[in-house]
């Protein structure tokens, strides 16, 4: 090993951490102080002043940040999607025509659709099942923690973890380091090259996302279930309902709103996620999805035009889901 003493001695860890710590403490204190001051002053303001102050304090900061950080970029993206690769001239709908006439487009769309249907569905169903099975179970926190653990793992970590599952060893003389191949061999099958088998490979990538998202569904739905009044459950038991019927007829309707929220959140997350595909197959072997193609176009091939067009297509694809959710919320509100 080389001697790096000269290098390491240049700055002590404290010399690096101290200014950063100052920024952190100052940042937190300043934020708290501002909020504190605003409330002291605003509560003393006249009722009339409070009528407009309330918008300024509660709504405007968030909207301002959203306008700068998301709304303006969204319009900028829309503009770029009508321009060429380096955004130097307008080319009309050419990027959209490109996107929809590529030979790959059918595969990409089918895959994206498969992801968007399977991930929210499976994550929610499994998350719901575990939440239900462990509801009122003693010492269920260990089980819940294990299911939740993937949420605590970064995509970098997850890609390493799953390499050890899907790895395929073409050389028959060498031992497998992929768990799936080893299991297949132990059961007497000849393992295929997992990530090459179309359409199996897309499902295998989807499994990774389900593995991550189930914890989210379980936690949120578990919390919702805890809020179902005991009396409701008891009443249904007195009616002689079986456990399965009770689950379908009582539990699910009672937490329907939470389920919609969970499905929507996971669905939007799934549409946007590209790290899994990018790190595990690079979008090859017919596993590509829109989000990965968008990233690849904009940031690898430096074509902001096509990248932006794909982003807009993604946006448009999600709009019906957003619309459905908002409608649900309205219905619910009118029911109250």
């Amino acid at each position, binding site marked *: 090993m080389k001697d790096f003493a000269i*290098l390491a001695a240049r700055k002590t860890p404290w010399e690096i951490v101290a200014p950063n710590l100052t920024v952190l403490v100052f940042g937190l204190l300043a934020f708290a102080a501002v909020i504190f001051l605003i409330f002291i002053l605003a509560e003393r303001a006249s*009722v009339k002043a409070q009528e407009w102050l309330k918008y300024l304090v509660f709504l405007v900061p*968030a909207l301002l940040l959203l306008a700068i950080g998301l709304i303006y970029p969204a319009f900028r993206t829309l503009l770029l999607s009508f321009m060429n690769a380096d955004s130097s001239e307008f080319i009309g709908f050419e990027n959209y025509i490109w996107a929809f006439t590529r030979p790959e487009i059918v595969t990409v769309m089918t895959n994206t659709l498969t992801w968007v249907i399977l991930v929210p569905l499976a994550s929610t169903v499994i998350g719901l099942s575990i939440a239900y099975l462990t509801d009122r*179970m003693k010492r269920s926190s260990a089980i819940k923690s294990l*299911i939740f653990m993937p949420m605590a793992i970064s995509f970098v970590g997850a890609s390493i973890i799953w390499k050890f599952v899907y790895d395929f060893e073409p050389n028959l003389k060498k031992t497998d380091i992929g768990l799936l191949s080893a299991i297949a061999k132990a059961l007497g099958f000849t393992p295929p090259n997992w990530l090459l088998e179309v359409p199996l490979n897309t499902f295998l990538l989807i499994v990774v996302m389900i593995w991550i998202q189930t914890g989210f569904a379980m936690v949120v739905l578990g919390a919702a279930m805890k809020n179902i009044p005991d009396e409701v459950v008891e009443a249904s038991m007195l009616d002689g309902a079986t456990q399965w019927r009770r689950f379908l007829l009582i539990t699910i309707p009672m937490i329907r*709103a939470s389920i919609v929220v969970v499905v929507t959140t996971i669905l939007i997350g799934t549409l946007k996620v590209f790290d899994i595909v990018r790190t595990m197959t690079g979008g090859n072997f017919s596993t590509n999805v829109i989000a990965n193609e968008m990233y690849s176009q904009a940031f690898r091939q430096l074509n902001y035009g096509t990248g932006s067009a794909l982003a807009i297509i993604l946006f448009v694809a999600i709009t019906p889901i*957003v619309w459905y959710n908002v409608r649900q919320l309205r219905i619910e509100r009118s029911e109250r």
Partner: protein
Amino acid sequence: MTTAEKTTLGTTRTGRAKVKNVFTSPWASAMAIVLAIVWTIPTFGLLVSSFRPQKDINSSGWWTFFANPNVTLENYQQVLFEGTSVTPPLSQYFFNSLAITIPAALFPLTLAVFAAYALAWFEFKGKNFIFFTVFALQVVPLQMSLIPLLQLFSQGIKIGDTTLIPDLGITGTYIPIWIAHTIFALPLATFLLHNFLTQIPRELVEAARVDGAGWFTLFRRIIFPLSIPAIASFAIFQFLWVWNDLLVGLTFGGGAKDIAPLTVRLAEMVGTRGGGWEVLTAGAFISIIVPLIVFFSLQRYFVRGLLAGSVKG
């Protein structure tokens, strides 16, 4: 609940006993345990691998470890303590990750609960439109926001010759990272907290209003205390998402090593030309520890937590 009123004290007691009985059936427990084990096997493989020597990791499956245990702490030693000026030891990145994550979880939650309060309880024109927009903004891929936001932080905002926001000179500090995370978290946080806040009983709010509480007092005395569980449970998710984020930290850190989070370091460990599984396995495991501690310590909030109010009834 009308059904609840029907139950007498006696039936409630027997009912509760029965409920427990069915729910804790061995069949249900077994199912849950099996699922938990299946879920953990891949991660367990990583844990085992992180204690194996490099040569073993590359040449045999992690499960063979149990037939032929060959333990080393070298991987952890290498990751944790072997630092240089280019790559300081992991401890410093730990600090950075915390310094990024704590404010980046607190700021958006504060602003989101404010906005959610406004959208849930204020009556004004365009309320539905704003809510719809905020919700829809979840969809904007954050890659599309990187360049405009970076320009804001490095050059301010100018329209023609008028400077709307000057160059704040904050590049190279945590501040751009905090702001970026805050912005990206707002749509989902506002949406979820809004769902929660609309469930607060109208009578409670109206009673307070009748008592003469202003909008600010109402928030401080009633809304905020009631929404703490929801905030706490969302805080856990926000904490995890920020902790595991690579893109925002990488982009808004402006290349400054001194403020880079753990994930940036972890991604670098793959080495210039790949490889180095042994270091990565250990590094990945170290980065999981803090989120797990956070999860365990805030777990009880999940009981009443996120969206707890969204149960009909």
